[in-house]
């Protein structure tokens, strides 16, 4: 499978999910449990991605400049600093640590 085919397939699936919600009768899944699972899936996948992006290097776990960057990012989000600023600071911090070590 080429990257293009993969991108097209994944995009179609995501659109189909949205459209499905307009086709199925609301009573079928508009109940607390499916909604809760859908919301928590978002949380779990994002948290999993953060862990892999922060500690993963191929199939190994490493502690490097990314750890300092994500901790700084968490602190800035807690202080309600805007998203784009936090992302830039995190990148700059990681780059700075790499340049110095």
């Amino acid at each position, binding site marked *: *499978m080429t*990257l293009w085919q*993969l*991108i*097209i*397939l*994944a*995009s179609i*699936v*995501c*659109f189909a*999910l*949205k459209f*499905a*919600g*307009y086709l*199925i009768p609301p009573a079928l*899944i*508009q*109940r*607390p*449990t*499916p*909604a*809760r*699972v*859908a*919301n*928590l*899936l*978002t*949380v*779990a*996948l*994002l*948290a*999993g*991605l*953060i*862990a*892999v*992006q*922060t*500690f*993963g290097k191929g199939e*190994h776990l490493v502690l490097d*400049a*990314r750890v300092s*960057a*994500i901790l700084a990012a968490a602190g800035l*989000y807690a202080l309600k600093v805007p*998203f784009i600023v*936090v*992302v830039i*600071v*995190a*990148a700059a*911090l*990681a*780059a700075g640590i790499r340049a110095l070590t």
Partner: protein
Amino acid sequence: MPETPATRTALRAGVAVGVATAAYGISFGALSVAAGLDVWQTCFLSLVMFTGGSQFAFIGVIAAGGLAAAPSAIASSTLLGSRNVIYALRMSPVVGSGWFTRLAAAHLTIDESVAVSTAQPTLKAQRVGFWMTGLVVFVGWNLTTLVGALIGNLIGDVSAYGLDAAAAAAFLGLLWPRLKQLQAQAVAVLAAVAAALLTPVLTPGVPVLVAAIVAVVFGLTNWLGPKTGDQTAESPPIEGMPS
């Protein structure tokens, strides 16, 4: 359309939220190119997939595992897009009738449009809020994705500039507004620990999917969940991006 105070408020909210979140497209564009996609592929994702969380997940898995992680990439973006089904159900009586209208509405069904819509008092204002927010985010998100992708192309080497750390920080920005309840916090911590511990054991992309099991278990049992109150009535957080 005759304007009332309610629809004017909805219009303003839509534009404000749309402009604010569109700015995040820059990060997506730059990180997508860093993950190995070209500018066209990056723009295609924002145009057609158009759901930020899934887009970020997709490029995150590709960055970690390349084409070999294709099944995980599709599974991650699909699972992250699953809440759009719930949003669509909620918007179904709001958006209007007709096939074209509902196809277009489906495409614009994202966190922001649903959040603005559900915050409006009247049906007409809900409809205006949905469409205005969806359209502004769509246009802004795609323009800024292109800008970000072009910047990413110019930058080149990823790790020297800390773009890999930027990706983790961007994911954290999407996650942050969703962590208000204890249940969500517990799921986030356990999912992160599971994904990290499984990284040396499983092929790239799969650890994140296994972490999703944590969500299913908590979701089905409502472990640590609020005792009363209807979570489905809760508006999606809008500090993030179209996701």
